[in-house]
């Protein structure tokens, strides 16, 4: 691919060993026309400044490592063509997360939320392998398929206006994942998860901003999952009023 001239990449730097507060550093990078933002960062790392730190691996938008803000928008840097930007491109760490160093942010809180929604199949009696696969029709699969596509890139957390203000909020990806299991015909754990959804920081903290779905690079539509989960959590609560907990509705 042909050269596409030069661009100035302005990157937020922060090394807790030496910096009190984040600073910015500019790099002039000769870019190719088919480059993604990640390619420019790799050029900086390999050719200009080996101390620049960021996470990346698959460079095909599936490992979810390389989320960052590009000109203020949450992006996977491996799936964000440089050509659509002007001469200066600003790269900062994902918003709403503590920064560990440069573009590397804290992941622990996110994974703790994912774990909190019990993202595994819950059944009263587990199936034995000898019984073979459970039947699931293509229609039943389609019920949850979209919500199973989350790559845990955390872009939705950095776009969500609630995540920044509500430290307990489960957040879009975790709710979408819990909802994915609730919708799975093989699962029997919905009432456990609805209970979690109704707790403080659960689904009702969401303010319908829809930003999560707009930045999602995999079209998971977490906003739709959250909205469905809100309805489900209410119905489940109402069911609990009529039937004793654990009763079949």
């Amino acid at each position, binding site marked *: 691919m042909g050269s596409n001239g030069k661009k100035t990449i302005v990157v937020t730097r922060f090394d807790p060993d030496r910096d009190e507060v984040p600073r910015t550093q500019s790099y002039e990078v000769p870019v190719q026309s*088919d480059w993604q933002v990640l390619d420019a960062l790799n050029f900086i790392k390999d050719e200009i400044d080996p101390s620049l730190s960021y996470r990346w691996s698959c460079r*095909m938008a*599936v*490992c979810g490592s390389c989320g960052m803000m590009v000109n203020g928008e949450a992006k996977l840097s491996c799936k964000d063509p440089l050509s659509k930007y002007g001469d200066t491109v600003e790269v900062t760490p994902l918003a709403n997360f503590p920064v560990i160093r440069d573009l590397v942010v804290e992941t622990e809180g996110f994974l703790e939320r994912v774990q909190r929604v019990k993202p*595994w*199949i819950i059944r009263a009696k587990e199936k034995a392998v000898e019984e073979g696969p459970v039947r699931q029709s293509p229609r039943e699969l389609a019920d949850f398929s979209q919500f199973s*596509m989350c*790559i845990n890139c955390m872009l939705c957390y950095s776009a969500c206006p609630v995540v920044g203000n509500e430290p307990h909020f489960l957040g879009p990806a975790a709710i979408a994942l819990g909802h994915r299991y609730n919708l799975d015909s093989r699962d029997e754990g919905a009432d456990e998860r609805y209970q979690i959804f109704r707790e403080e920081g659960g689904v009702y903290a969401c303010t319908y901003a829809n930003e999560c779905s707009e930045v999602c690079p995999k079209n998971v539509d977490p906003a739709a999952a959250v909205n469905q989960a809100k309805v489900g959590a209410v119905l489940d609560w109402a069911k609990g009023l009529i039937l004793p907990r654990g009763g079949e509705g």
Partner: protein
Amino acid sequence: MTEVLRHDIVIVGGGAAGLRAAIAAVEADPDVSVALVSKVYPMRSHTVSAEGGAAAVDRDDDSFELHGYDTVKGSDFLGDQDVIQYFVQEAPKELTRLEHWGCPWSRNEDGSIATRAFGGMTTKRTWFAADKVGFHMLHTLFQHSMRFDRIVRYDEQFVTKLIVDGGAVRGVSALDIREGVSRAILGRAVILATGGAGICFPFTTNGNIKTGDGMALAYRAGVPLKDMEFVQYHPTGLPGTGILVTEATRGEGGRLFNRKGERFLENAAYGVGSKLELGPRDMISRAVDQEIRAGNGFEGPHGQYLHLDLTHLGRKLLETRLPFVLELCRTYVGVDPVTQPIPIRPVVHYMMGGIDTDIDGATEMPGLYAAGECGNHSLNGANRLGSNSLTECLVFGARAAIHALCFAKGVEAGSESVARQQTEEEAARIASLRGQRKGGESLARTRSQMQEVMEEGLGVYRNQDGMRVAVEKLAQIKERAADIRLEDTSTVFNTELTAYLELVNMLDVAEVAALSGLARRESRGAHACSDFPERNDREYLHHSLVRFDDRRPRVEKKAVTLGRWEPEARKY
């Protein structure tokens, strides 16, 4: 004082094999404590990039015999037949387990598991979840693993050394990437599950983390690597990036064409017979390579390429079964496979070779096990069939865990003082690297040089001269690597330091691959020597071992376990 942590089993690597091993261990023993140590968060592991599917007998027209024979023949008779027998029998159970754990396998109308065709497989036996199979398997395993609090994760911890005492492995020294400190993690048994080493090459489907770390750890501890000359080139990578276009495209009916519009696999000389696009990967990559060499390729900004055509399959099928291929082609080459052919060329995809283990995943070193791509159980021999490796991670991850557990029950925990002393030595070594090396060589350029040497010497076709040159140049690069300049002094998330440690690992792995290749003066599976074009069972029906002995690599042989299938000409 250096921290020493204690567990029963230490697993290095959080991809499919490592996660499956961790789950198998805690399910088998209600008291066991497992450390899952990975240089990345588990869901970033490269399993995530696998696309096409996982093989296991399911249909009425299939059988263990057929899957076994296909795998033996695919391996060019270098697979151990007892291992293959065990693998094909366990495969359906493992994929069923994953189904019970929530993996969203694609379905037939009646709700049964759907299967698709894959290269070298006689019938449709590849289970799939559209074309994001590795992604779904990895996330299913990771999410299921969260049920168990006895799986203790050590995320973003880079293992720099095996702790060895009295000839047995006792744990690992791990650098906390985030904090910059080294800790000892003691285990009565250690399972390495760190994946392959595609980044030894410049053009690969592999993610940046695939740097052969586990292979190098075992090798430097004296455990041999096996069959490392067999590097799988996948026929269909996107030019420029090397991003994988799954074999499932051909399983669903995709066709390969050259610039003249010929479906060149019809040429009998390519050996795929009536299988055409569903031939094995080694043969199709050779055919693509030859077509390009013959001038039948298209000229592109990233070199020559051929066409993979899916346009006749129709939008509906592509959107249902191959949505990721659509996304990848539209995003990274600006091609819409619904209406346009996809540009492709062969790309380094998988290391058949790995840490020498037996059928249980046990290495020569007491307590040390390996599973997944970093191990070599002799399942894949000289050429792996597509969709066998995801299943392999499950079958042999689980088996390694059960055997590691048995081993662990019979031994005392390692000595804390030995672990501390060895880890303090590691910490000192790492401190002497971090921003402290004033040498004249660039890290990135040294890595590129290694990659170029590997592509030149161990391409789709090799020859003796080329491999000899590769061995010599790699030795020179290794020397120069001691003079690499390291500038980043930070203790926090110092990725220059980890990239250096990865490069040192890759240089060992690369050297072993080149030496193994040089010693095998025949053509078998993915090892195609232009100066020895025939398979030579009389002299080379054996595995290659390379052992680090007296600070030098030594090439050895190991017998192949044959069985009901005698070696025969590999014709399709």
